[in-house]
């Protein structure tokens, strides 16, 4: 950036509105969600019946851990259980 007239500064500030608060919170809670999913996967690996119920409805299983089942989280769990 070479010039900093005040009108341009205002234009630059306008280019970066806040992301929706819920999106930001979900991303901030990712590490917590990972811990919850780790526990879920561990339990699923130890208990075939529980694993079958998780696989049958990933979203419900995720929500039961207190984590919002966003597409990214669901996909993450699907890969973990397939692996």
């Amino acid at each position, binding site marked *: *950036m070479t010039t*900093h*007239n*005040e009108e341009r*500064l*205002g234009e*630059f*500030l*306008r*280019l*970066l*509105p*806040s*992301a*929706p608060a819920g*999106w*930001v919170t*979900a*991303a*901030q809670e*990712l*590490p*917590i969600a*990972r811990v919850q999913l780790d526990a879920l996967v561990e339990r699923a690996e130890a208990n075939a019946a529980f694993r079958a119920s998780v696989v049958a409805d990933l979203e419900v299983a995720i929500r039961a851990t207190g984590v919002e089942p*966003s*597409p*990214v*989280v669901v996909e*993450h769990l699907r890969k973990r259980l397939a692996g």
Partner: protein
Amino acid sequence: MTVGLDVEPSDADLVARCRRGDQTAWSALVERFSRYVYAIATQAFRLPQHDAEDVFQDVFAKTYERLGSLRSDDAIRPWIGQLTRNCCLDHLRSSGRTVLVEEPEDRAAEDVIAKLDEAMTVRAGLTQLSTECQDVLDRFFCRDESYRTIGEELGIPAGTIASRISRCLGHLRTELEGRNLQPPPSSGQVIR
């Protein structure tokens, strides 16, 4: 706004703390780059909100998983920028839209991203101003609040808002001109 951090840490500090498992630093990192990721998805690639949300979560999930592979901690901004580009392109491909590198719309996306990079530099300058200036500039320019709303929210006469904005923009200009602005560091690596 910072998340539980008294002083505004550098990008490199945040990254280093995130690597050590510091949840507060992770929250601050997400907050710092959330506008950037959101703007790239919605302005540069014009994704509708629903698709932009998927990309947004995907970018931060990958950031969390791959932070250890970042070669230079202070290169987090270009690294997240590239990651967001890749996620947007992957999303467009998976939704059946053809993406060709040399299409005019892709060059336009790059132009928008270049502007967003400058905007991030301006925003970094904003964080060095007083809380009062950060608040009034954010409300007016980013949240598009009227003088009246800002006056009511902050408990100050609406007639003084314009002069306050002008004064704070002056401080911001001084802050940015006082910096030896360099182009943001390159991450120096290809991200997939």
